[in-house]
């Protein structure tokens, strides 16, 4: 399998000494073009068109490496590694002094698990351009994957000399040092990486592990908290060449990803435009319609939101996200009965999504149907016992349904959840007061006030203050 993937052309390129003259002879029939010919027939039309256009350029410019490399990049963007590898190999053979084709070829080879060959390609790139920081970083990565940690470290140090502000270089240095057992030095390098790129989640995690091995548990836990806050996000890109490849994704997936990015930065118009362009490619894309429900709803265009909701569920009645998005808009309009019905459809479509059951329960509770709400919250907890909000809301719904002991029990169990603690404690205070236990009610009301913060609703704070005053005055004679 591995041998068959290595075209003779690729092997020839590997053996070709870097920088030496090369007869840039196009092969009689491009393997890359032939491989890509088999692709595309079942692909999205936009993707198939993009691939076919890139293919055609090879035929038009047979001796030119650029169309082959370009086709490789297109295939790379869609993770079609075997064909991409062939194209990059041909481009590199035709343009042996082009660093980009060698580096991209190395990426494709590494994806195919052919790491030693990838390293050879990067070595050739570095022979041509010893000061390429991305190539140095790439080489350090490949050496690390091959278990050649000393060499990986040396390469990371070279990269850092090229750019002392490269967080990636410091991260790779720290990783190699940790692997070599030089943990103190690793923690210093990783500390440098996180100071250069405070959002570098991987570096925070690696630093935490190094600190743990050094016995600095508290510092390790602090780094783990930072890591948890950042999540497993990719580190900042330091490779413009790779960025260029990824930007070539013209498929529906790429368009939706661009819509998500636009929505994240608050650019509703761009997000809507990206989704509409995805629908122009594939009008049956229920998920795009579902996202448009959210975006039009956010922009206040309820008619468009309704239209896309109807289209989404007509295409796929199990589109839980479309149901949920429309139900939320109904809630915002105060149309709670309709919203409950639509949330119920969302739950039926995705029965294990606890958050949908919670939203259904909230709506039922708001409609004055606490028993049904409690059932929804219980079902949410069956799927996610850690859903503190569901537990708290269950407790409150049970209290409203007159099931005092059960409600108190659930609220007590949810108290550690932090954010909702003031409201939970206030609910406990009210329940105990209503049940004739003013001492307990006062204790809970005081605790609730202590938990109030900037984000606590003002009416809750006022309500609690009034409760404390009332209970204190009620209990004062007894205290004497």
């Amino acid at each position, binding site marked *: *399998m591995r041998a068959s993937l290595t075209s003779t052309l690729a092997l020839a390129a590997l053996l070709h000494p870097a920088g030496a003259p090369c007869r840039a002879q196009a092969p009689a029939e491009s393997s890359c073009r032939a491989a890509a010919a*088999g*692709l*595309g027939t*079942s*692909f*999205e039309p936009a*993707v198939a068109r993009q691939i076919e256009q890139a293919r055609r350029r090879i035929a038009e410019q047979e001796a030119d490496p650029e169309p082959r490399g370009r086709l490789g990049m297109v295939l790379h*963007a*869609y*993770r*079609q*590694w*075997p064909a991409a590898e062939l194209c990059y190999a041909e481009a590199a053979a035709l343009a042996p002094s082009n660093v980009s084709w060698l580096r991209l070829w190395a990426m494709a080879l*590494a*994806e*195919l*698990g052919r*790491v*030693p060959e990838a390293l050879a390609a990067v070595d050739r790139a570095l022979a041509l351009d010893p000061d390429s920081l991305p190539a140095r970083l790439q080489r350090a990565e490949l050496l*690390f*994957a*091959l*278990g050649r*940690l000393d060499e990986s470290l040396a390469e990371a140090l070279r990269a850092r000399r090229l750019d002392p502000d490269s967080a990636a270089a410091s991260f790779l240095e720290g*990783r190699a040092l*940790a*692997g*070599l057992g030089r943990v103190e030095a690793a923690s210093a390098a990783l500390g440098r990486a996180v100071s250069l790129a405070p959002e570098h*989640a*991987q570096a925070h*995690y*690696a630093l935490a*592990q190094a600190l*743990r*091995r050094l016995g600095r*548990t508290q510092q390790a*836990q602090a780094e*783990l908290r930072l*890591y948890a806050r950042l999540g*497993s996000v990719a580190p900042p890109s330091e490779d413009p060449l790779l960025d260029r490849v990824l930007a070539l*994704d013209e*498929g*529906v*997936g790429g368009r939706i990803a661009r819509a998500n990015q636009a929505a994240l930065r608050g650019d509703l118009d761009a997000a809507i435009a990206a989704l509409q362009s995805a629908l122009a490619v*594939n009008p049956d894309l229920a998920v795009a319609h579902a996202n448009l429900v959210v975006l039009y709803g956010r922009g206040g265009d309820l008619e468009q939101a309704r239209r896309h909701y109807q289209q989404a569920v007509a295409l*796929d009645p*199990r589109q*839980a996200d479309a149901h949920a998005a429309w139900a939320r808009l109904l809630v915002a309009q105060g149309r709670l009965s309709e919203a409950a019905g639509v949330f119920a459809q969302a739950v*039926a*479509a*995705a*029965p*294990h*999504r*606890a958050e949908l059951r919670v939203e259904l329960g909230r709506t039922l509770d708001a409609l004055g149907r606490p028993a049904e709400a409690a059932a929804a919250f219980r079902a949410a907890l069956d*799927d*996610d*016992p*850690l859903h503190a909000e569901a537990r708290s809301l269950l407790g409150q719904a049970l209290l409203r349904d007159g099931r005092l002991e059960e409600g108190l029990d659930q609220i007590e169990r949810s108290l550690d959840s932090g954010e909702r603690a003031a409201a939970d404690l206030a609910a406990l205070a009210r329940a105990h007061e209503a049940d004739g236990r003013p001492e307990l009610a006062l204790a809970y009301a005081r605790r609730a006030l202590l938990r109030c913060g900037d984000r606590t609703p003002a009416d809750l704070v006022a309500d609690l203050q009034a409760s404390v005053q009332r209970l204190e005055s009620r209990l004062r004679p007894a205290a004497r």
Partner: protein
Amino acid sequence: MKLFAAALLLLAPAVAGDLFVDAADSAGLGFRHVAGAEGRFRIPEIMGSGVGLLDYDGDGDLDVYFVQGAGSDRLFRSRLAEDGRLAFEDVTRRAGLLVETRPGESGHGMGVAAADVDNDGDIDLFVSRYGPDRLWLNQGDGTFREAGEGSGLGDPGFGASAAFFDFDADGLLDLFLTRYNGFTDAGAKQCRGPTGVLDYCSPLEYPPLPDRLYRNLGGGRFRDVSAQAGVDQAFGAGLGVAAADFNGDGRPDLYVANDKSPNQLWLNQGGGRFVDDALLAGAAYNQDGMAEAGMGVTAGDYDGDGDLDLFVTHIRGESSTLYRNDGSGAFEDVTAASGLAAASLAATGFGVLWFDFDNDGDLDLFAVNGHVTRPDAASREPFPYGQPNQLFRNDGAAGFTDVSAQAGPALRRAGVSRGAAFGDLDNDGDIDVVVNDADGPAQLLLNQAAPAARGLVVRLLTRQGRDAYGARATLRRAAAPPLLRTVGADGSYLSSGDPRPHFGLGPSEPDASVSLEVLWPDGARERFPLTESDRLLTLRQGQAVAVTRQ
């Protein structure tokens, strides 16, 4: 009990130098998995199913239970001949295990765990499913009966790997079940690959399900104690599980491999409580803090330092991960330094086990592979997810070497391998492998790697006569370092292996002082003197000499 027969393999045409040969056809192990892939890309189809090795009829050799995806599971009885020839016979119907699929039934067989759950001296079967799980109680007469709802094990969710272990040391084997995610047929999403071609969804498309811990109440009845034990306090899309004492406190812990979400290391606190320590222990993520696509997992002492290390298989592009234990239950990702990163980068691994394939005394790795999404979007194959399996030889300080290319044609074949169970099927002192390929024929990979080196297989029984799951056995010799092995059938992926510890002894050298030190699950220690010629032993707690010896 069949007699030990050294390297007699007459059923499959072997080429000199092949390390494993596939003898499924010649031995009559004619099972073919049905994934049920009909173009709807239902998640259970691509997850495959497991395989179990168990001596269900107590005749001293391992029988094989295959979990079927769509259709009835199959039990194959081993008729191991005196000369070591293996032959299997399908006894599913006779054993009462045939389950006719009812019209409209959408369940799917996933994993299997074998153990004597009612301490009656025979091996029972737990089968996890997408759909209600099943407990089959062995009636001791060659037949099984389904325990039904009374067992307390009929969880209707998406069950995956399961491990029997005695977490509360009451002499009854409890059960931990990983559960995957909230996929349902009714709520199935349609997912596409980067080129827009329909394909299987990422696990993140569905919410993960909490795992389950069941306490054994005796008599084939269990109670869900997940909440009381605290194991519902963290969960991901669970696929693999290994039960072992990772921090050396004498209590069995759990390690759960999750797909695309952080793994859990449940440390047994005693009193029926567990705490997840994976994050600080360095075993939740790989060294870069990435939650990987955990599939299979295995625990074993690969570096001979007396503690249990972990190896977890992952999706293509992530490499598998080797977590080395420092003895206290803290782990370090040493994948790259061990030479396993590049070698596993292109593989999507599932079933896996630490075992000494060449009987040289250290633990090697065998990982079975197969893609979960189309590697080539243009492929016209109906189920184009095949990949070759891999064998990694432990070369001590030099790390691991991928020797798959030298292992023979069986390891060059590209299948969609999922479940893998490991055990000495022909009782010849080395470890063989049975693989359940999704939508393909099963493989019976007979070990031919170590004809010159010797192996020792020991069955360890509790005082009650049940396999002593959780026991630690250390082989001590005057002229060689100690070898730690454990008793248990867990690990790998959706599968249940030979619970008997196996020790590779290396080339024959005189050694006057050989003994096996056993730390039993109840904390008692016992030392059994062995002889140099021992190959296949049964030892029982409290009895100073072997029950059986060959």
